[in-house]
C-alpha cells in the first residue's frame, strides 16, 4: 500500500519553529487559539495512529478528523513525524512535571524518583500503545525525524539534563565519578529498552515491566552509589 507523506516546502520554516516547543509560551489570545488548533490536530492524529496505524494514516485523514483544511495542518506540522515528535515532547514535559509536582518525591531516594519519571512517561503513553510500537520501528530508519532531527536531539538533551539534575540532587551519589557523568546518557538508552519491553509486555497490568523497572533501578542506583560497576 503506497504511503502518502505530508510535505510542502513553503511552510517548512514556520512549522519547524512552531513544533519546537509544545506549550504556548508566547502568551496572548492568538497564541492560545493556535495552541487549541495544535491540540485538535494532535488529538485527531493520535486517534488515527492508534486505529489505522502510523504508516497508514495520511495528513488528509488527519485534517478530516480534526475538521480542518489540509493546508492548515502544514501551518503547524511539516510532516506526520513532526506530530509524533510533538507528542513525545508532551510526554517528557508531563513526566518532568509529575516528578517535580509531587512534593513527597523531593525527599525520596533516587531510584524512586527515576521510577516515578519512567512510570509517568508510560502512563502518558499507555492509551497510544499501538502507535508507540509503530513509531519505535519507524524511528529505526536512518531518515527518521523521530530519532535523527534537531527537535529529536533537543528532546533527548532535555530529558538527559533532567536525569542529570535528579542524580546531582541525590546526596547518596558521589559527584564527579565517571559513572555519574555517563549515567544520564545511559539512562536514555535504558529508557528506550524499558519502553520496548513495556510494548511487548502482555502480563496483567504490565506487572513485568514494573518489576523490571524496580529491580534494574535499584541495582543501577546501587552501582552509582558505589561509584563503580
Amino acid at each position, binding site marked *: *500500500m503506497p504511503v502518502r507523506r505530508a510535505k510542502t516546502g513553503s511552510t517548512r520554516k514556520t512549522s519547524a519553529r512552531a513544533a519546537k516547543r509544545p506549550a504556548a509560551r508566547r502568551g496572548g489570545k492568538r497564541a492560545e487559539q493556535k495552541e487549541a488548533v495544535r491540540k485538535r490536530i494532535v488529538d485527531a492524529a493520535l486517534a488515527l495512529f492508534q486505529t489505522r*496505524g*502510523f*504508516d*497508514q494514516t495520511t495528513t488528509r485523514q488527519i485534517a478530516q478528523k480534526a475538521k480542518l483544511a489540509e493546508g492548515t495542518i502544514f501551518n503547524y506540522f511539516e510532516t506526520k513525524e513532526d506530530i509524533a515528535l510533538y507528542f513525545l515532547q508532551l510526554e517528557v514535559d508531563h513526566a518532568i512535571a509529575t516528578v517535580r509536582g509531587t512534593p*513527597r*518525591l523531593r525527599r*525520596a*531516594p533516587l*531510584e*524512586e524518583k527515576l*521510577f*516515578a519519571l519512567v*512510570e509517568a512517561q508510560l*502512563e502518558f503513553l499507555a492509551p497510544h500503545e499501538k502507535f508507540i*510500537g*509503530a513509531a*519505535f*520501528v*519507524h524511528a*529505526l530508519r536512518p531518515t527518521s525525524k523521530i530519532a535523527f532531527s534537531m527537535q529529536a536531539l533537543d528532546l533527548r538533551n532535555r530529558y538527559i539534563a533532567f536525569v542529570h539534575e535528579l542524580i546531582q540532587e541525590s546526596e*547518596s551519589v558521589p559527584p564527579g565519578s565517571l559513572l555519574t557523568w555517563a549515567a544520564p546518557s545511559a539512562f536514555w538508552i535504558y529508557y528506550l*529498552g524499558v519502553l*520496548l*519491553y513495556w*510494548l*511487548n509486555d502482555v*502480563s*496483567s*497490568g*504490565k*506487572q*513485568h515491566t*514494573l*518489576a*523490571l523497572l*524496580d*529491580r534494574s533501578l*535499584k*541495582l543501577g542506583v*546501587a552501582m552509582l*552509589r*558505589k561509584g563503580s560497576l
Partner: protein
Amino acid sequence: MPRRGESAARRALQMASMTAGVTGSYLGYLVQRAFLSEKGREEKLRSTHAKAGRRIVTDLQELRGPAMKLGQLFSVQSGILPDEALAELGSLQREAPGMHPSLVRAQFRGAMGAPPERVFRSFDETPFAAASLGQVHRAVTRDGETVAVKIQYPGITDAVKNDFSWFRAVATASQIKRYFPESLIAELEQHIMAETDYVAEARNIDFFGPSLAPLGFVDVPRVRHDLSRGTVLTLSMVRGDSIEVFLASRPSQRTRDLVGERLLELFYFQVLGLGAFHADPHWGNYLFRSDGTVGLVDFGCVRHLSPAFVDNLRSVFLYPGPRDSAPFRALLSKRYALAGQRLAPKTQSALVRMATEFYGTVYPPDVERDQERVDFGDASIVRLYARESQNLLRAKATLPEYVFLGRTESGLYNTLHRLQARVRTSAIVRRCLRVGGATAESGVRRA
C-alpha cells in the same frame, strides 16, 4: 493485505523480548536485598519488616543463593532447624522486596484501573505489615470503613514459577530427589503459588469466615470484593495485638490458658471438623486480645484434606488401645494406601513411636484424664515433637499432607510454649472429634 509496519513492529518487539523478557527469580529478589547499601539496609530495618529484615541479612550471608531455598525446604520438611528459626525462615519465604510508594501506586493502578487516592477516601502510603509476597496498607473506603489493602509485588507469580523450574532441574540431577519426591515438590509449589493468588485467598476467607463462626472466639476478616482485583485484596480490619505485645501486657495465667486452649481447639476444629486448615503458623497471623478472643489473618496458605484422610486421622486420635498393635498399624497402612503408597516397616515403626511417645503423652486417651492440663511452658514438649518429627523424616515418612500439617502443628506448640499455657488437650480433641465428619471408622468417638 498485511500491514507491513505492524508485522515489522511485532518482529522487532519479539526480538527485544528474547533478551529482555526475563521475569527473574523470587530468589533473586531476596539475594538482591543482601546487596543493598548499608543505608538501604538501615532503612529496611526501620521499616515494618524490621525484625525479618535483620534476619534476612544474616541468614542470607549464611545461606545465600540456591542453598537458601534448599535450606527452607529442608527446614519445612524435617525440623532440622530449631522451630523458632523455622518460623523465621517461613517468614523469609514470604518476604517480598519492599515497595516504595510510587511502585505501590503503579501496581495498584495496574490492577484496579485507577490510583489508590481515587479509589479510597484515604490511603496510607506507608505499609503497616508484610503480606504474602507483598505488603499491607491501611485505607479508608469511600463509605467510611477502615480496611487493610494487600498489594502484591509485581510479577511475583512468574518469579516463583521460575524458582521451582530451577529447583526441579537441580533436584532431578542430584540425591535430593530421594528426600523430596515429586509429590512433595508439587505440594510445596502448589501452596507457594496459592499464596500469590489473592483471588483464591478471597475464596478461602469467604469459606473460613462462616465455617469458624460456631467457635465463637475467632475473628476473620471480610473480603471487600468490590475493592479487590488480581494483585490487590481489600479486607476489613481485624483488631488485636501481636503475641509480643500481648505477652508484654502480662496477661494472667487464666487468660493464657484460655487463649492456649482456644488455639488448640481452632487447630483441631479445622483439621478434624472442617477438613481444611489455615496452614501458615507465622506469628504475625494470630492477633491476641485481652478478653481471650483471637484474630486470624492471612489465608493465602490453606490446605484441604480429603474426607478419607480426615477419617483416618479421626480414627487414630485418642486411640484407646495400645498403639504398637496390629489394628493401629493397619490404620496407618490404610492412610498410606489412600495416597497409593505402601507403608514400609521402618516408616511404620517411626509413626508408631510418634503416636506412643508424643501423642500418647501429650494427648492421654483415657477419658478420665480429660481435665488434666498439659503445661506447654515446659520446653520438653516442643523438643519432643521436634525430635519425633526428625525421626519421621529419617524414616522417610513423607506424605504430602504432612508438610503443612507438621508445619502448622509445630507452630501451634511453639505459640503455646510462648504463652506458657496449660491446656486440657484430650478434652479439646475429644470435643472436636464430636464435630462433623464422622464415619464408621471413627471408633475413637465411642471411646
